[in-house]
């Protein structure tokens, strides 16, 4: 971050109306992105925002940057091309849970695995907003929508676990109703070199209102925990609860009742993937709290950087490509 950025949030706000429903959680995500980027010291034109289709995918229109509103589910593939073609661009992708994990699931998997230098915001409202309220891959089992009138019969997909299983180098969760926390995650993503996977729990007031209330509204302290690097994992209204290890899984215990040494300490930068995988279970199910924060961030070469390195090596070895030489190469014969 640049303390003396010459830009303000306003520089990142284009003219034109924002067309989300009043009260939609997307507004607050947008505001924090605009704010955080204005503080980086980089010009709005240095950023590219790419998206697919969905309410959330309107995001690029609302950033005064370069923007590409693509087709449903393909934002990460488009973004991969843009980033490899021009690594100097800072590429952000906004995607919905349907866009990014249903139709776009395969590109998600491979972008994470390749560690492409993209900041990916998954605006997860656990519903299809734009098409008016069908269940999504993150909807909980049993959720009733018109396409599942008796409730879905599918378990939800957890994008945190998924990303970690793919070797994700930056895997984080935040929520639309905690602007400060969001800003912190966005800032860290901005600084990250590879793929930054950010799940943002986002309230859709029209089709899935209150889906995250347990973890975002009054009393949430009882069911949520913030991951803070180097700190003991303690939570609860009075900081009375903590996370310990039982077997190979996390368990909630009372601070008063356990040996302080048994309380798990968070390490964002752990080289081995074990801790992050363990913490991924903290997703608000099975009596465990919902964890916010960065599950894991490791340094690893970004895809586009490695690609560039190879090309540079090839040039260093063979000299910069000479077209005439290339055409003339190989077995030739001359007709006169």
């Amino acid at each position, binding site marked *: 971050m640049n303390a003396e950025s010459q830009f303000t949030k306003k520089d990142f706000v*284009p003219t*034109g109306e924002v067309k989300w429903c009043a009260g939609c959680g997307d507004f607050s995500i947008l505001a924090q992105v605009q704010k955080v980027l204005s503080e980086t010291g980089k*010009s*709005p*034109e*240095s950023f*590219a925002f*790419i998206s697919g*289709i969905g309410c959330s995918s309107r995001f*690029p*229109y609302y*950033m*005064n*940057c*370069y*923007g*590409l*509103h*693509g*087709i449903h589910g*393909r934002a990460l*593939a*488009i*973004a*991969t*091309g*843009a*980033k*490899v*073609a*021009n690594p*100097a*661009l800072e590429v952000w992708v906004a995607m919905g849970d349907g866009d990014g994990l249903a139709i776009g699931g*395969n*590109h998600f*998997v*491979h972008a994470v695995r390749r560690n492409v230098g993209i900041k990916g915001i998954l605006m997860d409202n656990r519903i299809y907003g734009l098409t008016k309220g069908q269940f999504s891959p993150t909807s909980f089992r049993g959720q009733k929508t018109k396409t599942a009138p008796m409730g879905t019969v599918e378990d939800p997909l957890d994008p945190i676990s998924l990303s970690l299983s793919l070797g994700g180098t930056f895997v984080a969760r935040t929520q639309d109703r905690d602007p400060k926390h969001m800003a912190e995650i966005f800032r860290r993503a901005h600084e990250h070199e590879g793929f930054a996977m950010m799940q943002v729990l986002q309230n859709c007031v029209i089709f899935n209102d209150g889906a995250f209330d347990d973890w975002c509204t009054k009393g949430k302290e009882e069911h949520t925990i913030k991951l803070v690097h180097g700190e003991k994992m303690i939570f609860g209204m009075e900081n009375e609860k903590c996370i310990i290890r039982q077997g190979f899984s996390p368990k909630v215990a009372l601070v008063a009742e356990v040996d302080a040494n048994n309380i798990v300490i968070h390490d964002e930068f752990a080289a081995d993937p074990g801790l992050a995988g363990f913490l991924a279970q903290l997703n608000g199910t099975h009596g465990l709290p919902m964890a916010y924060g960065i599950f894991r961030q490791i340094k690893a070469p970004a895809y586009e950087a490695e*690609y560039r390195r*190879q*090309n540079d*090596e*090839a*040039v260093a*070895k*063979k*000299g*910069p*490509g000479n*077209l*005439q030489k*290339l*055409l*003339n190469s*190989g*077995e*030739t*014969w*001359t*007709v*006169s």
Partner: protein
Amino acid sequence: MNDQLQLKDLDKVVIRFSGDSGDGMQLTGNQFTSSAAHHGNDVVTLPDFPAEIRAPAGTIAGISGFQLQFGNQRVNTPGDFPDVLIAMNPASLRANIKDLRPAGFAIVDLDAFDERGIKKAGYADGVNPLDPEHTLGKKVIAAPITSQTMAALESLDMPKKDKERCKNFFTLGVLYFLYDTSPDLTLNWINVKFAKKPLVAEANTKALHEGMIYARNSGLFQSQYRVGSAKLRPGTYKSLTGNEATGLGLVAAAERAGLKLFLGSYPITPATTILEEVAAHKDFDVKALQMEDEIAGICCAIGAAWAGNLAATNTSGPGIALKGEAMGLAMILELPLVIVNVQRGGPSTGLPTKTEQSDLMQAMYGRNGESPIPVIAAKSPAHCFDMAIEASRLALKYMTPVILLTDGYLGNGAEAFRIPDVNELPDLTVKFRTNPEGYQSYARDPKTNARQWVKPGTPGLANRIGGLEKDKLTGAVSHDPENHDHMVRARREKVEGIANDIADLEIIGDQKGGDILIIGWGSTYGAINNKVNRYRAAGKSVSQAHFTHIFPFPKNTLEVLKKFKKIVVAEMNLGQLNSLLRAEYAIDTIPLTKIQGKPFTEDEIEVVVDKLL
């Protein structure tokens, strides 16, 4: 020199090599090709890969083939039917003997005709495949190739298996002798290739020499042949497959445009070798991404085009089917993008290793909504180079995706490519918009109707575009009905306007018109041309017109069509170009269709055209 052998002059010869995947037929064919080309012949080649990677040895499913035609004039095609068939085992003989010209001959490796080999080829028990009944009365020269090779290499200290492997060089030697062609090029190749394995080099060299000697002395052959050198346009040549040519054409186009090349791809037969060709040129800083699927392949190319690269994607028919939605996006974004379809036998998975021209309608219409994209097609392997540059030229100049159709026959086939002087290639220099003053992202150039290209990152020009309908000037999302109507028509007009920027449709034959015009497109050029030349030599009023630009059609198309009494449209599909011509010009035409995984033979054209004459 065996003085008994007659020396005969020939205009052209078609040779087909056929053997097990492991017999090295592709290598043998390619070596002969190079040597003939050096000798001054025009040569066109076509491999025929088996559908399986390596089906059981000795079976028909496992056969790998390679056909070439060389001559003392433009040969145009790898030939319809072989004059000479090299069959390394019974399965190869069985599968190919019916194609051999009655006046031709087959050379078989007698050693492979043991009981096991004969059985594997699927002959009934007790059958001798060399009986005239089974060779259809055609001439078969049975040479003990393997044992002769083994004998020749007896002195070398090598495993038996490795010695056996040299039999293809022995065979090559036979052919070099028979067609009076110098083996030097191959000998040189052997030395370079096996520089680190001198024993292998020695063995192969020896086998080659022994093959030549055997051909002279064995008494199996009565004649030696000579095919004079062809009068080709002066210049330096090399042999290129269509896919190599396409790949190099893209590299060349990027250089001539001053841009970086970006290819987003996913492997698929028979298109993969374009990706492999481009990937080999990292010294040009090309980006050749093998993505997770075809959709990602084109989508990353769209991202790269947006970011300012010369972007391309390549695939075959099933891949195009997957890319349809993204092609529509590229079209409405009005970004330059080259989309190469190396067509193969369809529908569905179809016949992946065979050729066909059945994706033309898909190229025209395989997208939702009114989504006009220019379609062009290459007519020969070397022509793929030119057409890759032409596709890039149109894409960059008109800010549009462009579809380049080639096919498996072109992609895998090879012919002599005249190496151009790079400075004579079209200048494709691109001007990015950098001036913020008055910029509107969908304002059009009055001449080309193209919008301007802005590289993301350019100060003062930040803009947002997408797949929703957009205002005709600002590019902002617009739901206005009249604006939509305007934009739908404007996008089509832009593409149709390209008709003013391409060559006229050429008549090969009666410039003022005549009896019959045979129309074609794509890889059938050579086959049709050969036949038309023969008709014309016989004094018949048969002419040819071959489309390289299909959408839009050249401006003078109707004019040309009107000059002829009868119009035959020959295609390897059920009449797709035919439909397009009829829809456009409401004229009656006669379709000539064939869907057998290979281009027309001269006979097949004759059957239809003779009746009309």
